[in-house]
């Protein structure tokens, strides 16, 4: 698996399959990037569960905040890591234990050894990307901001 470049089909497949996403490092502060991503993914129909042991509020965007992945009672399809690369390995272990099908690391977050471990356990892995940006790129919304989405198609856009 080449983690320097992902095909659109690979990313689209993940974003179409997953329904429940746990964001590790979700912030309660409305102008932080993780809050932007959580809010956007909610509007696209995903259930997003915030994980943050340091949160000072019980809920973020109407979802209960958990201290760890293991505490979440529901099944999780994807774990989105909003923490530094050094913390990724432990979160990947927890994602495998939780039965997640996908581990997604945010822009600037990458741990190739942890990725190999997740893939060996049957999970799909994306690193150094943002699911909000990729979703909006693939469905065309990112182009509304003048961004080059790289999508060339004579069909109507959808994810």
């Amino acid at each position, binding site marked *: 698996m*080449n983690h320097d470049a*992902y095909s659109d089909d690979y990313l689209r497949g993940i974003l179409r399959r997953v329904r429940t996403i746990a964001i590790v490092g979700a912030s309660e502060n409305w102008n932080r990037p993780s809050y932007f991503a959580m809010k956007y993914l909610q509007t696209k129909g995903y259930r997003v569960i915030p994980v943050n042991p340091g949160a000072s509020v019980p809920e973020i965007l109407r979802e209960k905040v958990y201290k760890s992945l293991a505490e979440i009672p529901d099944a999780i399809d994807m774990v989105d890591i909003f923490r530094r690369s050094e913390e990724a390995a432990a979160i990947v272990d927890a994602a495998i234990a939780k039965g997640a099908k996908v581990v997604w690391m945010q822009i600037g977050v990458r741990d190739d050894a942890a990725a190999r471990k997740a893939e060996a356990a049957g999970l*799909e892995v994306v690193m150094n990307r943002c699911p909000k940006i990729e979703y909006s790129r693939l469905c065309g919304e*990112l182009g509304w901001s003048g961004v080059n989405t790289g999508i060339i198609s004579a069909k109507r856009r959808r994810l």
Partner: protein
Amino acid sequence: MADARKPAAPGFETLAVHAGASPDPATGARSTPIYQTTAYVFDDVDHAASLFNLQTYGYLYSRLTNPTVSVLEERVAALEGGRGAICVASGHAAQVLAFFTFMEPGDHFVAANKLYGGSITQFGRSFKKFGWEATLVDPDEPENFRRAITPRTKAIFVESLANPSGVVVDLERVARIAHDAGLLFIVDNTMASPYLCRPFEWGADLIVHSTTKFLSGHGNAMGGAVIDSGKVDWAKNPKFKSLTEPEPAYHGLRFYETFGDLAFTVHGHAVGLRDLGATMAPVNAFLTITGIETLALRMERHVANALAVARYLERHPAVAWVSHAGLASSPYHGLAKKYLPKGTGPVFTFGLKDGYDAGVKLVEGVNLFSHLANVGDTRSLILHPASTTHRQLTAEQQAAAGAGPEVVRLSIGIESVADLIADLDQALASAGH
């Protein structure tokens, strides 16, 4: 598992027709609709808040973004190989917006002195009112840029192919000088167009365009564009605070941290267009989208016609010199082969042996060439810079810009080349008397 390999990138001509323009999501309209609206309804208060907070994508007010304009932005970004683009009202507005993003009062940049005359005036006069200082240097010696750098310098600015003198800048060397000093390298690629020259591949950080010229191509729509390479590490250099420090008007949002390599593009709309207001009209975006589809076809013909006219002029007894980098006689021939391998631009100058008066007679004696101040039209255009576009400059500035009294500028169109040569031939014959 899905194949994770990256498919081959589409070719230039495919991008020119398709990039940014999938069928209209609302109606399926295949041609890009002209969204002639100022504003867009909110779903509810929370949606409005998300838009104002930049938390979601969507249209709010056409001073910032408009669906027709954003198709053109993505098209231009794709053709230059950039991350994103901001389209604006004119090429001059593009320059203001590009510098506005990172310049503060008291800051400085170094620019080539061989530029479009209007840019020299803009940099030397109006930019001073913002407290931005420009030093102009001869780009033929790239070390001149390094020597002009001060502690307040933030960027180096050049035209890839200078208007009107046909000077080709050694982009790779100047890029290295800029990056060695931690500066941005900004290239105006208007005269070459992305079909002929690829500034990002030689190290440019930002590209600016007057889309009024070859991109639109038909002399009917004003516009400009700033394209971001997406490769600048804004956090690495404390000179570029506007993208890394909290933005008070967005409640302390930090653009680079929040938007990563989209930061410049988002800032250009959310702050640049919001406050400068130099918005591109949707109908001009539509005309430019239509024009840009044939960019490759037009440029091939423009280049072939221009080289034939330049060769004709080089042999004409009334002509002192021809400055066209496609001619073996040009000092820029070597640089042109490297940076403009598909041919040099259709805009070039030549000198008349009989000076200023012969220039005036020539522009008044042609019949097929249009005497006007523009370039990059399907129609062939002629201009005597010393009596028009460059008349506000001093004699020294005119000479430095390659626009002395004997100089005539041509922008060769896509007509039958024999007709263009015949028109020049009759006008040169009468200009000689």
